[in-house]
């Protein structure tokens, strides 16, 4: 048992240094927080798992009945009333240890959560960051519609790489969950409710957004492109968009499959709700 104790204490120790880093109250994106925390959980989880499971297998082999040896003293008898078999202290120690590990890990995760929930850094406080771009994301069976501050809307998300992006997410029909795996970002799209999340694009690339909540026939293919542009290029593109621009399904979605499932074919449906 002392092996278990020693190992768990030791492994727990490895998570201590980063804890000092994060207690500075700065805002962090999910793509900073998630890989960091996930790897800590993974390493510790694997270690604890290996220790406990190896101990279990060791005990199983060690105390395996070899058939010939005589019965244990004081073995349980048929019809006896159960007695609490002692060893309460051993249990208490093990429980305390596991509780310390779990609670420490979760508390650390909670501090990181504060950073994520704080939203993008304040403009005034941090001179380097530009004013965040706010985009509204509307889930509709089976596409994602993006509405920009100037009223322009599109089925592809175009964002600049030089400022934080704030997303406000909702749904016009059923529940969906919006997620961009590349940026470890995910939140529910709920009818008549808004949820928010944010991220910091760092390189110009095209990534994918998925749906993570079963929302009907087209759920598996409810994806959309997220195009991260150079900041200046984005500004030029954004300047020529207007609120009148009504997207057509094929304009922005490259995969033809989406056209079939486009929400406009279901508008009649949505009216039933209203």
């Amino acid at each position, binding site marked *: 048992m002392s092996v278990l104790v020693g190992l768990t204490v030791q492994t727990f120790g490895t998570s201590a240094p980063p804890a000092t880093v994060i207690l500075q109250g700065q805002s962090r994106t999910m793509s900073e927080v998630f890989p960091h925390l996930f790897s800590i959980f993974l390493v510790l989880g694997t270690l*604890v798992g290996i220790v406990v499971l190896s101990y279990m297998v060791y005990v199983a082999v060690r105390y395996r009945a070899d058939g010939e040896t005589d019965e244990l003293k004081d073995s349980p008898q048929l019809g006896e009333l*159960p007695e609490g078999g002692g060893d309460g202290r051993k249990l208490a120690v093990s429980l305390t240890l*596991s509780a310390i590990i779990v609670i420490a890990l979760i508390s650390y*995760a909670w501090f990181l959560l504060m950073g994520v929930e704080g939203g993008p850094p304040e403009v005034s406080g941090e001179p380097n960051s530009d004013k965040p771009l706010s985009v509204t994301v509307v889930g509709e069976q089976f596409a994602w519609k993006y509405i920009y501050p100037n009223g322009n809307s599109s089925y592809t998300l175009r964002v600049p790489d030089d400022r934080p992006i704030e997303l406000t997410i909702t749904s016009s029909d059923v529940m969906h969950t919006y997620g961009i795996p590349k940026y470890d970002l995910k939140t*529910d799209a709920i009818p008549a409710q808004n949820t928010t999340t944010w991220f910091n694009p760092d390189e110009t690339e095209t990534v994918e957004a998925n749906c993570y909540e*079963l929302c009907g026939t087209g759920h598996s293919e409810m994806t959309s492109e997220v195009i991260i542009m150079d900041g200046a290029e984005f500004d030029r593109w954004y300047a020529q968009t207007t609120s009148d621009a009504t997207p057509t399904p094929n304009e922005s979605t490259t995969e033809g499959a989406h056209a079939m499932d486009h929400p406009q074919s279901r508008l009649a449906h949505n009216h039933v709700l209203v």
Partner: protein
Amino acid sequence: MSDDRSTDESAVQPDGGHASRPLAEPTSKQSTLRRFFTRDDLPPYGALRRWLLTTNHKDVGVLYVVTALLFLVFGGVLALLMRIELLTPVGDFLSADGYNQTVSTHGLIMVFWFLSPFAFGFANYIVPLQIGAKDLAFPRLNALSYWLYLFSGILLGLSFFQGGSFSGGWTMYAPLSVPNYMPQIGSTTTILALTLFVISVTVSSVNFLTTMHRMRAPGLTLRRMPLFTWSILLTVWMMLFAFAALLAALLILSSDRILGTTYFTAEGTPGSLLWTHLFWFFGHPEVYIVFFPALGAMAEMFQTFTGRRLVGRKWFIVSMLLVALQSFLVWMHHMFLTSINLQIKTLFMITTIGISLPFDLMVFSLIYTMVKGRLRFTTPFLFAFGSLFVFIIGGITGVFLGAVVLDYQLRGTYWVVAHFHYVMVSGVMALVGALYYWYPKLTGRMYNRRLGKLSFWLFFAGFNLLYFPMFIAWETPRRVFDYPAELTGFHQLATVGGFLLGFAFLLVIWNCYRSLWDGETVSSNPWAHATTAEWAIPSPPPLENFPGMPSYESGSLDFLDRETASTDGGTVTKPTPSSHDGHDSHASPWPLGISIGSFVLFLGLSGVATGGIYVPITIVGGGLLAVTLLGFGLESFSVTEPAVAERWPFAGIENGKLGVWIFLASDIVLFGAFVGSYVFLRAGYGWEAWKIVPHNPIPGLINTYILLTSSFCVVLALVAAQKGRRWGVVAGLTTTLLLGIAFLINKGIEWIELFHHNIWLSTDVQASTFFLTTGLHGLHVVLGLVIVLYMIPRALNGAYLDDERPVEYFGLYWHFVDIVWLFLFPLFYIL
């Protein structure tokens, strides 16, 4: 152990009947039909009739186990269809909607129609044996639970033939689940099938709780109960409350689908959030409801096969108790990605971590039990050991999900899928161990040991090959057939594992089937070191289980002569006047009949909104249900309560009354969920902006007085019954009936008035909540009046003068209905 205990196998007939009570031969004069329904005797196991009529807990247990295994095959085939689809990262095997139906029905079948019923097969068989009861408290209700379960499953199967089954996932999130988005009749059928299943569970919960709290052998206090029985006791308490919340959710959803109410779709109210709250309030306790019986069985097997008593048994029980209580306080951890605020997220993160710690203790307790033991790796212990092994992995990966930040990213991915399969199917593994463990007790024969061990290794390998790659491929979104191509290899491994696991299940089933004939016969206790009472009686046990009255008063199990039973320990109940000669009934055709009636009725209801053939089906089903319920009520079915038993904490009230109390407790949760839904929607809409539906509160006020008066009349009827005044009873009940009818007429006028103003259930969310909630109450009133109508002619014949308890039980129900109205009236008419 005393010597007067008889475990002589020869005293028992091979069919399980007790030799000392020869089966009565039906005389040839009886008509065939009459003979078919002759119920004083139980036909032998070979006869189909036995299985249709039996109310014996052991027979019902076997029926549950066998039926659950059939549903396992059904759900397993669906799982394999999914795994075949996932061999490639694109959709090429099932249609998109077909895949969604497969995902949804697989989840529903495995969680509802397989796991719990499988565990409750053992609970049915073993719990009465472990506590020293001859049967459950209400044997006919037990059979009814089983038949409702079977027919609810058949109804689910039928849904595939009604334009497609439900396709919105086992979580059934709204508003995807309403007809605007899912118009198939089959989806309604699925929801109704689940409703029928919940009714079965509720009946079963009332029965088990009454049995376990009132019928324990003298000396068997709660603290001394075996761990399997403990796990079932806590499971059933959780079931009683959690399933009542699910029932409310399903009734509301059915109403949205069939009656056109707008709970989940109305604009300006948070309908979809309402569903998530209702569902997960049920859904989290459900995780433990499914897992606890497996845990209890694991504890039993660990003790038996290590030859040691469970380490920290007391703390093990305390842990289960804490989990059971706390399971109702963690549901919002399933909603971390919704719009709930940070404070609530933090709170639920804390409760979630809090609930994980007792599990650590239970795991350590099981591991330490092995230390210094003599471990015999029989097939059941291999399964129990393997189950603990994978449960630890499931538990560790679950801690990831408790950290809100990680949950943000892991939610909706295969991490969740892998995690809960590691936990849930770990439970299945333990229950397969339980099947092997109790197989000799159930059948009197030993399974094939070599095949048993082979089935374990295939099971264990298949399990890990199936679910472990899902952790590595966790970035796959849940419930999609279209996943990142680079993860293909892991999904293909998982598919191979899936088929291996499926094969292992078939091997288990085959082993159990073949060994019915091939297995060597076993003694009463084939396992050394088993301590619980089921191993002290023959395998299989005789019809009424024990050779004498089981008692633990001497400090260990004895079977006493019934006459010489000491009466100083437990509570003594005076023999009930209605019990005849101590000869208990063991068969009834009505549970099956009621279930068929309910099945036809629910099938009709699924499409009744579309008219056509469904209208006559509904009418036939309703008629059938009414007739069979009447038959059930009129049947004379005798059950004796044990004269001496441990009954803490319900010593003062008899079984029937406790049953009514427990049922009302679940009904409180049902109404609580309805009222909670109303308050939630109204708060989301704006409390003040919400318009009260009735134009005038006066009819409601009058109805309040009517109900109060009627409650008073029931009390008068009871007093008259106690004093032996027949006409007083009749007058009290008749006045109650008339007042109830007056209530309904008054309500009818009020509703017709509203309909005239064009206010219907579907008009707006205010009308929806008003009509549905007060309608549910009205339905309770109608049900009460049906009971009174049944009681009045009996009262005329003087039925309640010797035994006034039926009047008292009805009174409890009627007062409850009355009290509910006292809450509904201000909420829906005034505030």
